[in-house]
């Protein structure tokens, strides 16, 4: 389980992605050599966060890559859409971490705080 924070939606989404990959791989060893653009939809910003993390778990398998840097290029305030670029390199077991099967709804919450936003995520590992 992890908690990620951000001053705005963009930041909390980027930090959540980093927190996720800190579990999936040894993120310090991953160089941002290649990039992939992804778009994600959602019903609201909490749903979008869930879909965003789930999409990242997915592309580890489909692109066989690990990522260490994330840039949210566009994100709608109502949480219906985001576009992001993810930077990383081809996956290799030596730089791998823990196999993450999925994001779960257990205590899953994206909420506004005094400083911006906070999200709590429990991963199925």
């Amino acid at each position, binding site marked *: 389980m992890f908690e990620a924070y951000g001053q705005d939606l963009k930041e909390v989404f980027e930090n959540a992605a980093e927190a996720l990959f800190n579990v999936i791989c040894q993120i310090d060893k991953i160089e941002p050599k290649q990039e992939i653009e992804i778009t994600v939809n959602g019903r609201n910003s909490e749903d979008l966060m869930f879909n965003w993390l789930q999409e990242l778990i*997915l592309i580890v398998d489909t692109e066989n890559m690990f990522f260490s840097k994330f840039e949210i290029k566009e994100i709608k305030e109502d949480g219906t859409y985001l576009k992001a670029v993810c930077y990383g390199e081809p*996956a290799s*077991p*030596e730089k*791998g971490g823990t196999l993450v099967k*999925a994001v779960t709804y*257990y205590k899953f919450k994206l909420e506004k705080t005094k400083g911006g936003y906070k999200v709590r995520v429990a991963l199925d590992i």
Partner: protein
Amino acid sequence: MVLRMKEKLQQISEFEWFLSKEVRDRMRVSAKIIANKTILNAIEDDAVQQLTNVACLPGVVEPVIGLPDMHWGYGLPMGAVGAFDAEEGVISAGMCGFDINCGINLIRTNLTYKDVKPKIRELISELFKAVPCGVGARGKLKLTREELDEVLERGVDWALEKGYVVEKDVEATEEHGRMEGADPSKVSDLAKKRGAAQLGTLGAGNHFLEVQRVTDIFDEAFAKKYGIVDKDQVTIMIHCGSRGLGHQVATDYLKIQEQAVKKYNIWLPDRQLACAPVNSKEGQDFFAAMKAAVNFSFTNKAVMTGWIRETFEKVFGHSWEDMDMHTVYAIAHNIVKLEEHVVNGKKRKLYVHRKGATRSFPDVPVIIAGSMGTSSYLLKGTETAMKKTFGSSAHGAGRAMSRNAAIKKFWGGKIKEELLEKGIVSQSTHPKILAEEAPKAYKDVEAVVDSVHGAGVSLKVARMVPVGVVKG
């Protein structure tokens, strides 16, 4: 002061504990835990609470079962069974488990540890090369969409055709490695994209490939039927599931079932128990997709069986047939089955959810895998299991410590040494992997097996210990 759920358990025999449906509001049926006292003391209260949550669901059939390896999980604990009426009940992706058909294949050989010991390092090194494992490992097979659909529909029959396994392996597999009614069209493109390159990969986490030796034979007649005849006989165990494909199917249907709960107005004590009525479109779609993922997992292990045989041939210079490397049995332990059981004297069709639980049918092999470095067991199912647990038993040693806590306490390098001291050669993609799966992070498998044997649910046949481990 809130009364903890465990305090409400009543002991009804040395290995059985009863939780009446009066212990909380809205429980429709009772729950029961199979465990000896030591295990029961170690079970988290939250996990017992979860059993009572499941007992609130529509169409649930008495009792909800907790097995001795039970621990807190998503909705239904790992190491638990929930059975639901085939008309009035619900079916749930969370109660099946994210790793659909995570299961175990046990393969025998006619080699003894004396034969294998001089070449064990070479063997483990070759197996590590032959069977891709670990997060980010590249699979050796890349299936086209059509081939993948075939695997999803036909399961192990596909592997048989391709020559990875032989007919006897198929017969020694639960469901003959192929659940009828699997529908590839109910598996999302995303799941297929994840799975297409993962057939024949071991994965990571608590998945492993072990070379083992038999230390004890408790039931000689039954063991002999399955070719286990000698102490020090070498066996092989594969513990693995449906990989990214299965995880995605579970995730996809969890989302669908979250919506189904609202649509069909199902009251849930816990959001994680999202489900759908068994005969709804959402319910049957999940069942058909789950079967496809089950077939993928059986095929995955069949492919690895073929490669393991090739590796042994390479290292020992005999054919696998000459080394009698046949499948003893292949079981599933995250699965939903439609089965007939006798409940209160009447035959009823039930959707039996076994999450971290195996089938335990009369005179059919059961396999309980210990955690890394500890023993595993071959057992046999019983009539008692049919009466007490819907024909189910434990699947392994449940986790006693969260993975993160395990890493903080145990550093991988030290564990490799500890394993070596026990005479176990291990190879993993990096040290953190060994730390996460340190034996002390798990409950004691001996106590788990003692409990199911004592309760008469599965009876010990043979015990094996690892001599070599490959982990991702």
